[in-house]
């Protein structure tokens, strides 16, 4: 019997796990995938929103602004790449100016600091590639960009270090109320807990509806993206949004913390909660829409495209808390944008609800600090050479596009909740995330992973399950 079971090791579940690990409690996270950060958390805009979008007085607004404020300290504590590069919402027609002003006003009421409207002249100075139609923009200096993988992984690693158990490849099939709390049937046996945190992303409605009569519905809202080469990474320096208006909801153009340029997302409601495929229509739509706020986006520099599914709840609001007919079952449902930004605040809120329900007390030995994979290129030449002398594997470059060494890959595999697949290595080190998209480094990364896991090359997967790279040996069927 656990005190708390968290369903889902995405950014929300991992934030809740970290916040709960501050307390004396027996906690377990159940994740159906082979790693943390495998769903919506890995496929989004990687933006820390300022908080002007959400409706005044909504929980979404409150947690967005809180999450944004928490991010500086969290990024420092857990060594997460995070930059407050500022964001701009661009108005491209004088007719839309009232909407821009309304957005400004909404942001101020939500408590967003430093908001102001910049006129075209200043806007062009700030962003030389801004659209010729751009009239003015709402500038939010608190907007930022973050590594969504590291944010998720860092909180999970930290929770793990503070005693939270993680079970991967464990899919929850049913949740039922019991005298003592809840019984969860999984494909790997029965788990019981006094409290459950439902952080199941697009599946959160399924679990909620198993224990509560107040039904909710989560619709996957697909967002497709382009990622561009580093050579295009400084095309804009702030995150540039289009004011929702005549052209519908626009797409953003933003640098990433790793120096790439990201363009997206589309927004289409779909039925299939697993349909993370990109579509011709979606990609074509992006190519058209990105031109609204930024001109001549160099789409020839695209190195990959991907799609993520937002967990859109019918009321477009974060549902955080216990349904009145299921005390002890704490929903974190409807976590769509700005969910990544709000995640630290959502985790804290969920943890406080559980604390109050179970009467948990704080630990004195909570470890607040975590470290990212050691990056030799952040060291001075002297430090780097000292490192290579002690650990020669930091002198062997495996991923040439992102300059990732064997030492970093080993670190990613050997650390708590370490990588078990090539995608796991990629999210922790960036190996394979560059312009050749793992063409050169995947055989070597596979070799290192097989050696470390003490298994054969034919067991190495891209992302767990049946995603194997190798099906046999030469001539084995002849």
């Amino acid at each position: 019997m656990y005190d708390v079971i968290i369903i889902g090791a995405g950014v929300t579940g991992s934030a809740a796990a970290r916040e709960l690990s501050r307390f004396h409690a027996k906690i377990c996270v159940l994740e159906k995938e082979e790693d943390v950060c495998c769903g919506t958390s890995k496929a989004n805009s990687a933006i820390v929103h300022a908080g002007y979008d959400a409706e005044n007085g909504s929980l979404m607004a409150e947690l967005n602004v809180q999450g944004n404020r928490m991010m500086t300290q969290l990024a420092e504590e857990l060594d997460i790449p995070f930059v407050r590069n500022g964001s701009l919402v661009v108005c491209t027609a004088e007719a839309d100016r009232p909407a821009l002003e309304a957005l400004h006003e909404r942001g101020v009421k939500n408590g967003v600091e430093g908001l102001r409207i910049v006129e075209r002249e200043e806007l062009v100075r700030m962003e030389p590639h801004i659209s010729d139609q751009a009239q003015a923009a709402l500038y939010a200096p608190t907007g930022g960009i973050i590594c969504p993988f590291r944010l998720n992984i860092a909180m999970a690693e930290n929770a793990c270090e503070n005693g939270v158990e993680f079970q991967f490849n464990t899919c929850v099939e049913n949740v039922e109320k019991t005298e003592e709390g809840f019984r969860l049937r999984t494909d790997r046996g029965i788990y019981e807990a006094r409290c459950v945190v439902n952080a199941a992303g697009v599946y959160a409605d399924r679990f909620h509806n198993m224990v509560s009569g107040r039904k909710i519905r989560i619709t996957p809202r697909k967002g497709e993206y382009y990622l561009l080469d580093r050579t295009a990474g400084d095309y804009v320096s702030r995150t540039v949004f289009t004011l929702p208006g005549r052209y519908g909801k626009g797409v953003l153009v933003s640098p990433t913390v790793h120096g790439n340029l990201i363009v997206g997302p589309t927004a289409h409601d779909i039925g299939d909660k697993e349909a993370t495929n990109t579509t011709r229509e979606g990609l074509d739509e992006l190519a058209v829409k990105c031109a609204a706020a930024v001109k001549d986006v160099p789409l020839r520099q695209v190195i990959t495209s991907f799609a993520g599914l937002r967990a859109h709840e019918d009321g477009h609001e974060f549902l955080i808390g216990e349904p009145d007919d299921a005390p002890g079952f704490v929903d974190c449902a409807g976590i769509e944008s700005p969910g990544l930004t709000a995640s630290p605040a959502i985790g804290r809120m969920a943890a406080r609800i559980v604390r109050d329900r179970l009467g948990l007390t704080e630990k004195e030995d909570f470890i607040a600090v975590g470290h990212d994979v050691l990056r030799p290129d952040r060291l001075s030449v002297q430090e780097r050479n000292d490192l290579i002398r002690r650990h020669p594997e930091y002198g062997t470059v495996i991923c040439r596009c992102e300059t990732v060494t064997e030492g970093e890959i080993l670190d990613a595999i050997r650390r708590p909740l370490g990588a078990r697949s090539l995608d796991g290595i990629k999210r922790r080190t960036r190996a394979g995330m560059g312009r050749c998209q793992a063409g050169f480094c995947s055989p070597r990364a596979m070799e290192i992973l097989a050696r470390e896991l003490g298994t054969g090359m034919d067991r190495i997967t891209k992302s767990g399950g049946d995603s194997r790279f190798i099906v046999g040996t030469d001539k084995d069927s002849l």
Partner: protein
Amino acid sequence: MKAYDIVIVGGGPAGLAAAVAARKSGTDSILILERERELGGILNQCIHSGFGLHTFNEELTGPEYAARFVAEVKRLGIEYRLNTMVVDISRDKVVTSVNREDGMFSVRAGAVILAMGCRERSRGALNIPGYRPAGIYSAGTAQRLVNREGYLPGRRVVILGSGDIGLIMARRMTLEGARVLLVAELQPYSGGLKRNIVQCLDDYGIPLKLSHTVVDIQGKERLTGVTVARVDASGKPIPGTEEQYDCDTLLLSVGLIPENELSRGAGVEISPVTSGPVVNESLETNIEGIFACGNVLHVHDLVDYVSEEASAAGRSAAEYVRGLSADGAGTVIRMNPADGVRYTVPFLIRPERMDEKMTVRFRVGSVCRDCYVSVYFDGERVLHRRRPVVAPGEMEQIVLEKEKILAHPGLEVITVKIEEA
């Protein structure tokens, strides 16, 4: 900081040939920096034959071809470092690298020869929609797994792109027991050599569908299938022409991109057409003393031409460090690729500096039958050579003679074009 007369970035066919030629031209102090575990570059995984017909008058495999140059490099006592990744080349020719033994180290070069080769265009760059499962490989990655490591990456294969590596891999996968269902090519012509279409597809009954592309990729974990459709003249898929292929593997052979990130860092001017450096008759870039050759300069079809070009770069670099070409003045003639010719290498010619005979290499933009390759000195046609067919997949070349150029004082532009019969 250690200094060398010539530092060569890359120990593949281009780097090796450049090193050998530079040594034979009298330069003693040469260093080759190679990121892989051995010299020879991509040839080490090209275990099929067909290499060396021009250079050695015999048919060798890739590793055999490389071995001849490696033996020569060793015989000549040329210094090289393996497992060494160059991370920076500065404008003033300081080359910074990293490896296990030396850590981060910099060397000062009298001349630098860029010989980094190229990489394969990835699925992402093509914008093929669909899922992102395991089972999608660039043809070269699959070639490495199969030929060097003995692993089969899949059993039912569709290949997109008819570049030479894709064609070679169609045959290789078949020989290793996989079934190749189709090679689909976006263009109305193949991107590879004619001989490879015959020897790798026709001989094995593998269908090639021109003007076709992959429009959807299925499979959440491992690839389960792809949808292929015909495309119109502008390359857009035609609705209603979709065909479904159940397969576990998609190989991509959709183009090679010269790897010039280091060159850009050094301030080398890059041609938007070749994605390689803009070079003159000496294969020297806009940065004095930095030379380029092989696939980093432009993508070649035959390694024999890489060796030939790289030897020229090696000789030029040797002359440069001996101070024979210190003076940069004199006339500069611009090469002008026109009417079906996409580019020429070199891009510029200084007649005083050129050899008695100089090879100009180029590629055409589309297939053209019964045509002429013509060369004009300003307005005057000086060469008009009949060709039964020219194709983008096969590199073309002409030879310019110094004597003839010098006989045209005031010559400004040499135009190379394809003319119809």
